[in-house]
């Protein structure tokens, strides 16, 4: 199988996931009658706009009502409201795919728009920023610590890392976040407790960047602490498994220096399973981001999810569910590419 073929197969299976989530949500929406409500609301919204613009030109009330009634029937047919919900499945899937979910009930974007796509897309970069920086920091620390403790099994450092990883599995990100806020923002008063910028934000671009950086410290730190333990432990186990293989012994017997053995013979081989566990940890960090953003008032999609639940804003919730799945599938695909690049066996099989 060529490299391209492998990637296409992986990509396709992820698209199946995306489609499944889409259909699952659309079926749920349809069967609970929610999609009817959503579309009816869209229709009446359009008709209200139409009535406003037409009332300037058409003076006769009866004629105006007639025009609007015609338009209503057209719209109902257009959106398929005259037929049961399952006829609308493909159309609904398409609407979610393009984030064409009409207008949010109460939530607004920072610029004041009430279009669902505006609200959601505006928050996307903030979430991506949070997740990516946390993931990168976690993997770097995890790799370093994991490899280090793999060479000293039984040491105090190794044992404390294993205990720490067990504890962090039981530690909810949001609770840790709250503890950090109490500790660093209110007791020590060295870091801001929430938000992405100070109020009012600095005007100079560099100061603005620094301000954002300072605000990002606590959320990123929380995400890293929650995942870095188990991540280092996973790296340790994989490095340890491979360092017991014969070819590693041969390399050592040849008299290669230890760090060369580690770099060329152990880590190189351990890399693909390490990436696999990074892939598996991804769902966790996505969920972690939703909760961490909520706690820290970080204006990303996770915080928006919380706000949408509080405001019971259905369209936004649908859009966010889709966006989170999309984000997950994309991130996963990037890691799959990395996996293929790192593991030659996948390519030449």
């Amino acid at each position, binding site marked *: 199988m060529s490299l391209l073929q492998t990637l296409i197969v992986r990509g396709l299976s992820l698209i199946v996931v995306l489609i499944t*989530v889409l259909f699952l949500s659309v079926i749920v929406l349809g069967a609970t009658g929610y999609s009817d409500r959503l579309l009816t609301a869209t229709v009446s919204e359009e008709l209200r706009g139409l009535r406003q613009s037409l009332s300037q030109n058409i003076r006769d009330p009866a004629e105006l009502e007639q025009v609007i009634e015609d338009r209503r029937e057209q719209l109902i047919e257009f959106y398929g409201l005259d037929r049961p919900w399952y006829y609308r499945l493909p159309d609904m899937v398409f609407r979610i795919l393009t984030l064409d979910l009409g207008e949010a009930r109460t939530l607004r974007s920072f610029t004041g728009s009430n279009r669902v796509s505006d609200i959601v897309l505006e928050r996307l970069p903030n979430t991506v920023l949070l997740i990516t920086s946390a993931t990168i920091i976690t993997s770097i620390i995890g790799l370093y610590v994991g490899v280090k403790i793999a060479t000293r099994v039984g040491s105090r450092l190794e044992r404390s890392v294993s205990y720490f990883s067990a504890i962090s599995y039981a530690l909810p990100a949001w609770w840790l976040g709250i503890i950090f806020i109490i500790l660093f923002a209110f007791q020590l008063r060295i870091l801001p407790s929430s938000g992405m910028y100070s109020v009012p934000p600095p005007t100079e671009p560099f100061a603005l960047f620094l301000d954002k950086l300072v605000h990002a410290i606590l959320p990123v730190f929380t995400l890293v602490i929650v995942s870095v333990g188990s991540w280092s432990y996973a790296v340790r186990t994989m490095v340890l498994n491979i360092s017991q293989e014969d070819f590693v012994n041969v390399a050592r017997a040849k008299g290669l220096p230890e760090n060369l053995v580690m770099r060329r013979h152990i880590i190189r081989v351990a890399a693909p399973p390490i990436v696999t566990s990074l892939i598996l940890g991804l769902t966790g960090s996505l969920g972690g981001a939703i909760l961490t953003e909520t706690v820290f008032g970080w204006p990303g999609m996770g915080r928006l999810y919380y706000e949408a*639940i509080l405001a019971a804003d259905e369209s936004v919730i649908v859009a966010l569910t889709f966006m989170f799945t999309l984000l997950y599938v994309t991130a996963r695909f990037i890691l799959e590419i990395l996996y293929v690049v790192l593991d030659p066996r996948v390519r030449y099989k």
Partner: protein
Amino acid sequence: MSTNRENFQEFFSSTSGKLGSILLVIFILISVFVVFTYPLNFGNTIWSNPSYWSDYPKSAPPTWVSIFGNENVEHQIIDFTAPVDVIPISNQEQRLYSYTLNYDSNISPTFLSLSMYDVVYHDRPPTISVSILRPDNEEILIYRDIISSPRQGEEGPYVRYSDSPFRINLSGDKSVSSNLIEFVQDKSNSQISVNDIVGSNEKYIFSSFSSTNPQEVLHGEYKILIKFVVNNENDSISKIRFVLGGSSYGLLGTDSLGRNLSVGLLFGFPIALLIGLTTSTITTTIGTSMGIISGYTGGRTDTIIQRFADTLSNIPLLPILLFLIFIFGPQLWLVMTILVLFGWPGLTIIIRSMVLQINSSQSIEAAKSLGASKWRIMYRHIFPQLAPFIFAQLVFFTPAAILAEASLSFLGLGDPSIPTWGQILENGFRTGGVYIGYWWWILPPGLLIVITAMIFVFIALALEPVVNPKLKKM
């Protein structure tokens, strides 16, 4: 192969195994206690019922905080059931209730309230009056009321406040302020108005009116005097309750509705264990059966199960969980169902790969050649070999379910009829407890969630060398 006894020894020899087991036993005992002492509909009738908690101080820290030198006033509930004296006045009867309390705290009570329970009268409505005799021998009438008169067409005896007690908040009542105003003006030598004192009546009742420190409290013996005047000797009142609101309450304090947090947190024990153990048991059962069937049967069944499992296990759990719970409504059984639905595939994939290895072993070949049925081989020959691993998975999955429910509750999608630790924490967070500093509302529920999850992680850690003997050598 090691015996069960050796496995047990191996398990209990580790610190984490011992710690986890001891904590688990404690948690189970607490849960059993709660199951037997709490009403089944605790959530709806008690926890989410504000009137049940009206006589508790609001947002009060735990009592033991006063050890650290914080000014503290004890929460006192005084119940009057029997009069100390009955004085006949013409054709009326005055029943006198009294209580003496020694007040030595440096701050006044946080509130004062009066409740009446089950009043029955026959002719004319009784009257109640409450006055306080201060240490400086000033007697102030603070409250006077007539029980509501018979409605048109109502036949005696007239029953009042039997379903729910009549409760009045004396601190915020304007009639109390009007009763007090003359006394306050006199004492403080100022033209203070009724509107100035309403809402903090209790401060003036207990004030020393010192010119240097207006907050100073008059220490000494206070007497609460309640007169209940009836027109028929058969009239009755079952209980009068006078509450002096404390600045702290109980072992774990109260929330902003006055709910005793220790009561709510106790209820969380059986719920957390129920969520964790039920979900993980069902998940492992389904995951194991699917994995064994898929791995042993092979063919089309295998392909279908694996495709299905692969897709499901790739769906990010929290967003989908949030979506489904939002649409279908926050119900605990639904949360657990969804956790099972998305939880089994991961285990199925692992179990299948293990079954594939066992398939080629001689013991399976032998069973086959002896003519054992497909189901018998799966149940009697494959399952026992996987059992320790499956048990470890069950333990390991338990905290995941508990944490998932807590996260969901924290995002405001908890089942309102069943209070959980996650919900209590969410209430605290949404009220702004983090910013105001209600640490007693935020820390304990989170800590309990962490400890519960940790119990199972510890047990899983101790099980690891038992399940995976290779690790022992390292």
